[in-house]
């Protein structure tokens, strides 16, 4: 086999926390050197410790550090890196950053800037994917700029409707509206939230599907037009549109539906000229119809559940694809084995969800068969309030869903984190919940669960 001249010798990871560690682990397996960047408060973070080289790029605030493009590029040049892996969040979906990398002759590990830009504009993405043949939820054809226009659209598509931010993601800038008199205010607050979070207050409206399931399809595409899917992830357990836990495969997808959704996602990606890893998110209604919601042009937090059931290494594939290697798999190669569940452990009060920064005084990781923990914290680590509260992901894999639940229960019991509050007790309770155990989950699950357990259900 001819040796690939584009093989990377060194990669800079433009991220922090658990995903930075995750990328470093695969780079080590591939013999690729790593450069970590960090803010001054992240000096003792695990990703810095295990990278081959490191540089402090700014003070704690993300805008001056992890989002500081000149600092990151300058570091990349000083260390002479071949490529940058942006992880998720931060600059992972910045078309501008992808362009700058290209201009500086540094390979951005992800799709092209054009595709990132296209999918980053949720209104455009809806239009483009619809043209590419994906069913979409009935909604406004473009942005909604006035209450009048909103009312007209909502009357056409029928209540309930949901107002969404065009530049949004991660569940922010969204409002569910059940009747006309609420619409004006919802448009206003969603737009304000969007302007603050994404610097773009444009919003659009979709029909709101009751109790939908959030099913997403993982895709992998090379730079030669080959594309396959790696099956679905069930991500319906969310609070305020933030995912708390995920699993693969979904309890409601038949092989036929999986094939249909998978082929739809792959077909659209091919038409887009997509490359690298990506996720096409769908809503599944109670009748088994699926609708395109949005596409994430990056690796996702919940990627481990797919890796467990398919034995794929998504980071490894991203790197190979970026090195210009052909995908090497066909759809027939896909094997989905057993069942995987992931619980996101946040440094939060498990009842109020208030952030709980502080020093971890005792720490133990679960082990044994079928257990994986992606984390960046350790005993003595100081959890700061500056960043996301996600501190660990506990993932289990077993032959059946029932066995996976039992496995997660005992793994969570052995997952000891003291000195701060975490959401481990919340996940343990969910594992015991009869509705969860039966597989009857939808995006209404957390509301049901919190109400049942006597807590205030989160406002949508």
């Amino acid at each position, binding site marked *: 086999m001819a040796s690939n001249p584009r093989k990377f010798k060194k990669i800079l990871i433009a991220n922090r926390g658990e995903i930075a560690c995750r990328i470093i682990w695969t780079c080590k397996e591939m013999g690729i050197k790593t450069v970590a960047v960090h803010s001054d408060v992240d000096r*003792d973070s*695990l990703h810095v410790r295990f990278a081959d080289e490191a*540089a*402090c790029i700014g003070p704690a605030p993300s805008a001056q550090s992890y989002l500081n493009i000149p600092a990151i590029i300058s570091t990349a040049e000083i260390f002479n890196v071949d490529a940058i892996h942006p992880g998720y969040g931060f600059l992972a979906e910045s078309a501008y950053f992808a362009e700058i990398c290209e201009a500086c002759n540094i390979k951005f590990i992800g799709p092209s800037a054009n595709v990132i830009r296209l999918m980053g504009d949720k209104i455009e993405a809806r239009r483009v994917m619809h043209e590419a043949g994906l069913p979409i939820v009935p909604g406004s054809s473009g942005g909604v700029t006035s209450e009048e226009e909103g009312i007209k659209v909502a009357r056409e598509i029928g209540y309930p409707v949901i107002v969404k931010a065009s530049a949004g993601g991660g569940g922010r800038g969204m409002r569910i509206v059940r009747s006309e008199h609420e619409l004006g205010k919802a448009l206003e607050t969603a737009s304000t939230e969007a302007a603050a979070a994404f610097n773009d207050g444009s919003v659009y409206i979709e029909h709101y599907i009751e109790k939908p399931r959030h099913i997403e399809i993982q895709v992998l595409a090379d730079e030669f037009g080959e594309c396959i899917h790696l099956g679905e992830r069930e991500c319906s357990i969310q609070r305020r549109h933030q995912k708390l836990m995920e699993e693969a495969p979904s309890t409601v997808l038949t092989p036929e539906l999986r094939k249909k959704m998978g082929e739809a996602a792959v077909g659209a990606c091919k038409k887009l000229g997509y490359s690298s890893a990506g996720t096409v998110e769908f809503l599944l209604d109670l009748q088994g119809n699926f609708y395109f919601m949005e596409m994430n042009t990056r690796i996702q937090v919940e990627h481990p559940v797919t890796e467990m059931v398919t034995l794929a290494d998504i980071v490894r594939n991203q790197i190979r694809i970026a090195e210009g290697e052909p995908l090497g798999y066909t759809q027939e190669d896909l094997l989905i084995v057993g069942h995987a569940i992931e619980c996101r452990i946040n440094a939060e009060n498990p009842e109020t969800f208030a952030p709980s920064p502080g020093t971890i005084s005792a720490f133990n990781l679960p082990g044994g068969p079928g257990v994986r923990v992606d984390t960046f914290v350790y005993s003595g680590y100081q959890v700061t309030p500056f960043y996301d509260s996600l501190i660990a992901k506990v993932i289990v894999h077993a032959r059946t869903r029932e066995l996976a639940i039992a496995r997660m229960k005992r793994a969570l019991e052995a997952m000891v984190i003291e000195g701060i509050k975490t959401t481990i007790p919340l996940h343990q309770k969910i594992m015991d919940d009869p509705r969860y155990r039966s597989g009857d989950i939808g995006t209404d699950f957390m509301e049901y669960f919190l109400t049942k357990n006597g807590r205030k259900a989160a406002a949508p």
Partner: protein
Amino acid sequence: MAAPKEQAETSNRRARPAQRPAASVNMEELRELIALLRDNGLAELELENEGFRVRLRRDSAAGEAPYVVAAPQPAPAHVPEKTAAAAVAPSGPTHPGTHAATEASGDQDLHIISSPIVGTFYRSPSPAADAFVKIGSNVEQDTVVCIIEAMKLMNEIQAETTGEVVKIYVENGQPVEYGQPLFGIKS
């Protein structure tokens, strides 16, 4: 997965291939020293032992966590001696700390000019020209002390203080990171 926080990494080599501190760090001893520092309300503790020097300083601005600077020294030719220089003042407001630095941490009476960006440090405006400042040079607020090159742009760094240059912590052409100490100025 415990990672000892006490393991020091000098700031002026953060932007170079990461090395590990010398193997002669005795974790048990370090822990005892830290306890000594804390239990007696000390601000600083220095210990020299068989060619190894340790300075512990409690930075009250960061809360209760003391940080450690361990500098392995070349083996001395003479018989090594154990000396312990005890505390200075009880813990109080310390130097408006930048970040862990070797020599700079001891220079509490100096104003430290640290790098505001990531880049390559240059002492003079061009290879043939004289250095902007030398040891002994006097500086004012807007005196340019060095250039830090980032992404092909030459950024002039001003002193933003008045005084005399007494320490230069980095070398010409050295990569520097955010917060890295560059000059020590005596006012």
